[in-house]
């Protein structure tokens, strides 16, 4: 249990900046997820925390003490890798013992600790097997066991579920969540999978191009994305984006002329504004009405418990709307889309930044 502070961390390979001034406070006992597309620098950030890469500038401190100059083995961290990285020539027991032997623990203590973690992860029956005789899920459990035995201050996970098949992924994800509950240890977890991020994290850090886009709880990120990148990255299917024709103080006009009664408190109204709305905040109607958008059905995706309808607006912009699976629609059908105003987000299209909005309907009514 320890907190970790990263201050103005930079990393560049040659002329390319991989990390561009990262500041991050990780609380003691927190489960923090670093989320971003591939190449955003999240793995590099994790490897710098572990000491496997050197930072170009900046500092990392655990409980106020800088660890930037320490080699990986002296940082009191443990890491779980995507490819498990078990020592192929050692048995499961050997894999778990190695770090303790290197650290110079007594034989009795090594035995106790290994037995304890083996029990916790239900590895007892596998202790004498070689990694090659284990399934993917078992290997990752051993890798987690190897991390636990050393009783580290901080656990680092580098996409630990990416090499597992879909069924196992859910199971191991649950095990990691339970592990965090039981140990209440500080954990930093890198992934590009937003489902993992949303389900595991206390807080998520969204990274893109080496910069932090937003830090917040999964709910924060989903309900109040700080910018266009976060809005488009979080949530499945992706958020719909429509360009506004004109934004005034208490109404927003779409390209097809539809007026939406939403107000904003921006001191200067930007020239280009993008409206964002999730598929769950659109409703399809058969009849036209004021402030409904005329559209044509392109495609229907039936998923059993829900249906996603892809539509094209008169402006040529496309949207995905979630609908009750009872209703079926055909390509070419004429529909009218109602936007639920509480689900509307506005972004400055030039800077990508979120703008605060409120519904002016109730005020006028």
């Amino acid at each position: 249990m320890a907190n970790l502070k990263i201050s103005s961390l930079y990393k560049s390979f040659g002329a390319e900046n991989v990390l561009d001034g990262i500041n991050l406070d990780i609380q003691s006992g927190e489960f923090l997820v670093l989320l971003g597309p591939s190449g955003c620098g999240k793995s590099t950030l994790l490897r710098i925390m572990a000491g496997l890469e050197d930072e170009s500038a900046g500092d990392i401190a655990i409980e106020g003490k800088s660890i930037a100059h320490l080699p990986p083995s002296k940082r009191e961290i443990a890491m779980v890798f995507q490819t498990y990285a078990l020592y192929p020539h050692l048995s499961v027991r050997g894999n778990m013992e190695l770090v303790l032997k290197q650290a110079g623990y007594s034989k009795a203590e090594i035995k106790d600790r290994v037995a304890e973690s083996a029990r916790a992860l239900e590895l007892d029956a596998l202790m004498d097997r070689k990694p090659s005789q284990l399934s993917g899920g078992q290997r990752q459990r051993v890798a987690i066991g190897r991390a636990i035995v050393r009783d580290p201050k901080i656990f680092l996970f580098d996409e630990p579920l990416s090499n597992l098949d879909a069924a196992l992924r859910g199971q191991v994800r649950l095990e990691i969540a339970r592990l965090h509950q039981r140990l209440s240890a500080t954990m930093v977890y890198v992934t590009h999978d937003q489902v993992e991020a949303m389900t595991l994290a206390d807080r998520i850090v969204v990274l893109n191009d080496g910069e932090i886009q937003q830090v917040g709880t999964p709910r924060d990120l989903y309900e109040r994305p700080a910018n266009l990148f976060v809005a488009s990255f979080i949530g499945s299917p992706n958020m719909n984006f429509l360009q506004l024709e004109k934004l005034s103080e208490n109404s927003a006009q779409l390209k097809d002329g539809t007026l939406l009664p939403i107000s904003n408190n921006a001191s200067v109204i930007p020239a280009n504004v993008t409206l964002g709305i999730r598929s769950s905040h659109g409703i399809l109607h058969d009849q036209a009405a004021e402030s409904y958008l005329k559209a044509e059905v392109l495609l229907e995706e039936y998923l059993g418990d829900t249906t996603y309808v892809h539509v094209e607006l008169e402006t040529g912009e496309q949207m995905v709307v979630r609908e009750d699976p009872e209703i079926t629609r055909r390509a070419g059908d004429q529909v009218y889309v109602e936007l639920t105003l509480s689900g509307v987000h506005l972004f400055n299209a030039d800077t990508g930044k979120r703008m605060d909005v409120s519904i002016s309907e109730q005020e006028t009514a």
Partner: protein
Amino acid sequence: MAISRARRNRIAELGAHVILLTFAVIALFPVLLILINSLKTKKAIFRQPLEFPTSETLDLVGYSTVLQQGNFPLYFWNSLFVTGASLCLILLFGAMAAFALSEYRFRGNRLMGLYMALGIMIPIRLGTVGILRLMVTTDLVNTHWALILVYTAQGLPLAIFILSEFMSTVSSDLKSAGRIDGLSEYSIFFRLVLPLIRPAMATVAVFSMIPIWNDLWFPLILAPAEHTKTLTLGAQVFVGQYSNNWNAILAAMALAVIPVLILYTLFSRQLIRGLTSGAVK
């Protein structure tokens, strides 16, 4: 349908075996010729070179000459020692250099790799005069070390080239895990990486061993003394200006094949894995 497919498969298999067998016969024919003729009388060697030894033509005079005349057990030992020591050094330093080149990012890394690879293209014999002068100054002429050092230098470029390719296939997560668990760079190299590239090491061992074992040039120039003579050089005593002692030459050659054969059998399983590991996953 199923039958015809099975039959077609069998025909294809047969065809492949015919081709492989033909190749094996072509490759093994000279070796076989040496073996059968080393067991015959001199007359029989020239009259019926392709015939197996019969009760009349069987003659072990070649072997008895080789084993009695001169210091053949010593030559044998010299060859074994020089080849073995050179192989150990080539594998050790080759693997270490390959690890450094593929694992660490440092200034001049690519240039260094290229410099090492140049050694594959430039034959070391071009530098014979320089090497001889060096060995004379360092007083190493007529010692095993003269040969071992030269052969190590000769074998390193190819070893580094092949091994660094394989080094980069070793999972970097594994090395990272070792570092986090507190293993030193040496432990990571010897305990994690080397066992994983064993097939590549066997490939390099076989490729490096054969030219060293067969070499005549450097033993002749750097270590021609009686106590450092290698097998190939020792066999030259039977090659005369006017007549050759064919019995003895063939017997010496037949004996020289044995250690190579033993080493090859030891390495062969690993070797095949090394050669096919790129192609078959």
